[in-house]
């Protein structure tokens, strides 16, 4: 499967979904006005990936900011990974947050309570 690699901008995150390398990464800021437009290709890609996933998929989320319009799209991304997990494949989410950023930690906990995938909360200490 062709990987998705998108360079980050001040308003959109760096994306790397690469089944060959086993990398599933969202990093940076996600604050576009139209997040559906940005996330749709990712959700579509995962729709294909779910038919033939790796034995173990590790998702790394390293977001500094995200807006409420992205929050729903990020949930849609997680829902795709949840389907893979339900089909008896190993899936884990590593949710990174900067030291003292309780808001970002809580945001991770929100997803953890909605999505049935194991989450690991990792504090980035400078």
């Amino acid at each position, binding site marked *: 499967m062709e990987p998705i690699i998108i360079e980050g901008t*001040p*308003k959109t995150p760096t994306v790397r979904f690469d089944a060959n390398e086993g990398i599933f990464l969202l990093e940076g800021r996600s*604050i576009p*006005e*139209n*997040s*559906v437009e940005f996330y749709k290709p990712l959700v579509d890609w995962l729709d294909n990936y779910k038919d033939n996933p790796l034995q173990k998929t590790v998702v790394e989320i390293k977001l500094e*900011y995200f*807006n*409420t*319009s992205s*929050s*729903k*799209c990020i*949930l849609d991304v997680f829902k795709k990974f949840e389907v893979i997990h339900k089909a008896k494949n190993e899936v884990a989410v590593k949710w990174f947050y*900067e030291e*003292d*950023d*309780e*808001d970002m930690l*809580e945001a991770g906990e*929100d997803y953890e*309570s*909605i999505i049935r995938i194991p989450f690991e909360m990792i504090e980035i200490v400078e």
Partner: protein
Amino acid sequence: MSFGVENFFNRLQTDDVIFSYKGDISSDIINYVLDSVEKKTEEVNDPSKTRKKVYNVLVESLQNLYHHVAVVPDDFEDQSSSRFGLIVICRNDKGYLITAGNFISTDKIDELEKKIVKINNSSPQEIKELYKHILHHQEISEKGGGGLGLVDIARKTGNKLEYEFIEYSEKFSFFTLKIKIDSIEVLK
């Protein structure tokens, strides 16, 4: 005398203003406001926790304007703005105050006010649950977060949303929202 946006905006220009803007709210303008304010909050060396809250709240306030403003009234002085809004940011030793303003058509007031009253009558725990409920169950619209913006602002700041609907004409009112972000010292 009817309500004047110019006067209202001028009265907001106090000594502690660090940024203010009124006019068209485009995607580029949002970038410009965010950039300018981010630089200011770095210059004054606020703790990163405060800076992040201000940034987050500002994103939601600006994108609320972007997605939800009414068309400007026919007799309004600035007809060049398709999305007219204003934003004023003050900073003092207690924290930040963000004021956002935009036109709203009179028939939309009830719905918005109900939303705000519901948020203001909720405890922090209830607001957290409300956020999760909307996130999980509500379809996202082309316009954005399906009403999550105000809930998110209330959740991140822990403060009540102060608001006012000022009558402009029969068809329009001017909606203002004041958002307080306490400095970390006050939070402690």
